[in-house]
């Protein structure tokens, strides 16, 4: 446990000692000047008694400090909040307790001193002058006690304030309210008493030194200055506490976001403490509100992220990669992709004007509208024209959305043809043979006018060509020196030679990581890239020979390809079993297990499904045989026929077909389906 540093205790003791010595010296001076008592006369009676009184006060006040403050020392670092709060309150109460202690004990000692004087016959109350003398002495001593009590209160409060700060208590203790104004009134009253009583003493007959009026003015002036000094000292302590609070506030005001909800410690039980406590309460409330807002924003961020598509659809020959990084929790950038009938791939990238929650809300509505309109069919231009009417109805022209839509044909004679329409969006970049160039469009953003029509343009992508869509956050960001990123930067990056085997996602990630590393994110950034590999890229074709075990290399290659292409698809084992059984069926029944015979096998990955096709040697489709129940199969000898049984249970579809006069068996696995129920 940390020890309380010795300095505050020593300082308190020193203050107490100084107060008592000052008081004693004042009494000595009073006796010497006012009553004309020599040092020898005082040494014989007054000085020993006053010294004894000082020693007694030292012991009593010291004991009081020890008794009241030692629990404070123990509890300051304690874990129990109640004990810490009690100790803190005791610490702040102590100066007032010391004030009352010194004043009370001084009164008792003054009474005892004069009682001893009377008992010892050093004074008498026989004559009115003697009583007046005694009264004047008591008034003088009382004045000294009052002054010293106030000074001791002020100094002890100053000394203990540092200790109070270390408690880091942010709320005012319950029922512990004091009034600075009340204490200042008491101090003012004490100062008034000091001035008035000392002026009265001058009126005492026989005390004139220069001239009665002059004496009166001198004493009044002297004690007024003294009283004003005490009062100013007392006020200065309250002012210091207020300045501490003001300094905290100023630091908070000039600090960053981290300091927004900071609280500062209570250092007094009076109005300054009330102010600090109230401020801290306000800060806590604002903090709670902010935390609630932040929680909501995080939730909104999660919801928005869930709206964005996760893994791209494996549509024949098209490789897609995208990154969307919002500059705040929620933003207005979005991208999406859908597979349209005929394995046509539809891509969209958009940017809603503005930032934060309003932009995010509009973005969600636009994404929903896009999906709805895309499902209705039509060209990219038609889609944007219809979507524009929805957006204009929502925004009334007060906000707008830039958006680009592309549709890629992945099959048939038009395979590789991409049709693009843009609504005020940044031009897409077409990368072909290491040359990156903008594909220029000119059109209004969505939401500006209700009857805008959007035209489209088409291009045929070559194998390995990349089409990139981006939002302005990528080209309008600045580096540390304020230099604008611009289109040249992204064109340069996309023109750089990269290994053809490098996944598109890695390339996109590298570009975005470079942006994040060197350019401040002032706006949302989205990059969507499409690479065309050719319409034969999503097929694997094999030749199965009529030999048991010939299916194994086909299984190995298919497994590696599917796991690489669809790393999260959970039905690979089911697919391999079905492929194995289809091959085995062909080996046994179609190829008659003769190594000289062979059949083609094809695994075709489309946007929605994986189709396994195994061709037969003949041109007649087998008649579907009724399925034998498993219990009956068990009784057969040999118990065969499990292949078709497993295919029917593992695949989403199985049947026979004919292609160019050749019969084939085909099983289908739908990509969006979970594993089928087990029998």
């Amino acid at each position, binding site marked *: 446990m940390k020890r309380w540093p010795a300095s505050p205790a020593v300082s308190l003791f020193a203050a107490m000692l100084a107060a008592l010595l000052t008081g004693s010296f004042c009494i000595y001076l009073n006796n010497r000047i006012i009553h004309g008592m020599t040092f020898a006369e005082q040494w014989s009676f007054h000085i020993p008694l006053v010294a004894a009184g000082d020693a007694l006060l030292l012991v009593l006040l010291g004991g009081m400090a020890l008794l009241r403050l030692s629990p404070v020392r123990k509890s300051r670092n304690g874990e129990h909040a109640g004990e810490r709060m009690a100790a803190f309150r005791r610490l702040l109460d102590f100066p007032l307790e010391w004030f009352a202690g010194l004043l009370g004990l001084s009164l008792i000692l003054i009474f005892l001193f004069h009682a001893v004087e009377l008992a010892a016959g050093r004074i008498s109350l026989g004559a009115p002058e003697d009583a007046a003398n005694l009264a004047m002495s008591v008034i003088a001593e009382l004045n000294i006690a009052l002054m010293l009590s106030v000074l001791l209160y002020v100094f002890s409060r100053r000394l203990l304030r540092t200790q109070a700060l270390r408690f880091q208590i942010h709320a005012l203790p319950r029922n512990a309210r004091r009034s600075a104004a009340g204490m200042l009134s008491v101090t003012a009253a004490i100062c008034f008493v000091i001035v008035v009583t000392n002026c009265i003493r001058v009126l005492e007959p026989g005390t004139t030194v220069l001239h009665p009026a002059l004496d009166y003015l001198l004493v009044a002036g002297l004690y007024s200055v003294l009283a004003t000094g005490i009062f100013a000292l007392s006020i200065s302590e309250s002012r210091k506490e207020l300045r501490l609070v003001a300094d905290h506030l100023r630091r908070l005001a000039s600090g960053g976001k981290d300091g927004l909800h900071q609280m500062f410690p209570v250092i007094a039980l009076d109005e300054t403490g009330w102010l600090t406590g109230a401020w801290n309460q306000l800060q806590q409330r604002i903090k709670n509100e902010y935390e609630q807002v932040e929680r909501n924003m995080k939730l909104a961020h999660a919801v928005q992220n869930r709206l964005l598509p996760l893994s791209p659809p494996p549509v024949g020959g098209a490789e897609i990669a995208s990154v969307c990084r919002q500059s705040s929790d929620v933003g207005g950038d979005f991208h999406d992709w859908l597979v349209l009938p005929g394995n046509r791939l539809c891509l969209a990238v958009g940017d809603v004007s503005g930032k934060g929650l309003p932009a995010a809300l509009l973005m969600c509505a636009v994404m929903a509208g896009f999906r709805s309109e895309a499902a209705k069919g039509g060209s990219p231009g038609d889609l944007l024209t219809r979507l524009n009417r929805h957006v204009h109805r929502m925004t009334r022209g007060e906000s707008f959305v830039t958006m680009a839509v592309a549709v890629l044909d992945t099959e048939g004679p038009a395979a590789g043809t991409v049709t693009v329409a843009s609504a005020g969006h940044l031009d897409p970049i077409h990368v072909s043979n290491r040359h990156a160039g903008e594909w220029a469009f000119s059109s209004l953003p969505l939401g500006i006018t209700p009857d805008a029509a959007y035209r489209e343009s088409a291009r045929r992508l070559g194998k390995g060509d990349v089409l990139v869509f981006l939002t302005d956050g990528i080209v309008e960001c600045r580096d540390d020196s304020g230099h604008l990123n611009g289109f040249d930067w992204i064109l340069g990056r996309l023109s750089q030679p990269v290994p053809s085997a490098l996944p598109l996602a890695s390339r996109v990630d590298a570009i975005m990581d470079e942006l994040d590393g060197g350019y401040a994110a002032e706006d949302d950034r989205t990059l969507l890239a499409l690479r065309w590999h050719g319409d034969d890229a999503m097929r694997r074709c094999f030749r199965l020979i009529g030999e048991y075990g010939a299916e194994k290399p086909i299984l190995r290659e298919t497994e590696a390809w599917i796991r690489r292409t669809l790393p999260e698809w959970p039905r690979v084992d089911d697919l391999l079993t079905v492929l194995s059984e289809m091959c085995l069926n062909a080996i046994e029944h179609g190829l008659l297990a003769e190594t000289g015979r062979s059949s083609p096998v094809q695994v075709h990955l489309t946007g929605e499904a994986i189709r396994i096709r195994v061709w037969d040697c003949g041109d007649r489709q087998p008649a579907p045989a009724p399925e034998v129940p498993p219990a009956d199969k068990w009784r057969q000898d040999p118990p065969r026929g499990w292949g078709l049984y497993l295919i029917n249970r593992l695949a989403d579809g199985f049947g026979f077909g004919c292609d160019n006069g050749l019969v084939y068996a085909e099983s289908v696995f739908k990509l969006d389906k979970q594993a089928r129920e087990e*029998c």
Partner: protein
Amino acid sequence: METPFRYEQRALPEAVVLDLHGDISKEAEYRLLTSRDWSSGPGDGKTALILNFSRVSYINSIGIAVLIRLVRALEQAGCRTLACGLSIHYQKIFRMVGLTEYVLLFPNEFAAIAWLKENAG
């Protein structure tokens, strides 16, 4: 092509263990079923056979038929068949074809032996 099938037989106090290696397919039919007559039991006077599949990565429908014949033969001899080391996928296939009606599945050989000890007699 097929990974050659072979098996090793071990006799434990509680059962006979067959450590299976390679593909359970056409080749297993000859090696496993023609090597001995399982309808007289697993041998060594034991009444339980543990099939250890931990070194098997491929089982096709021919292999399933082989296993059914093996289990059926042991059933006739009044013996019990246990299996361990099967992947999750093949555990599912075993359930689909009804092998789990006759074969108890365990994650490993220790669990299978522990079960036999608990259910001895």
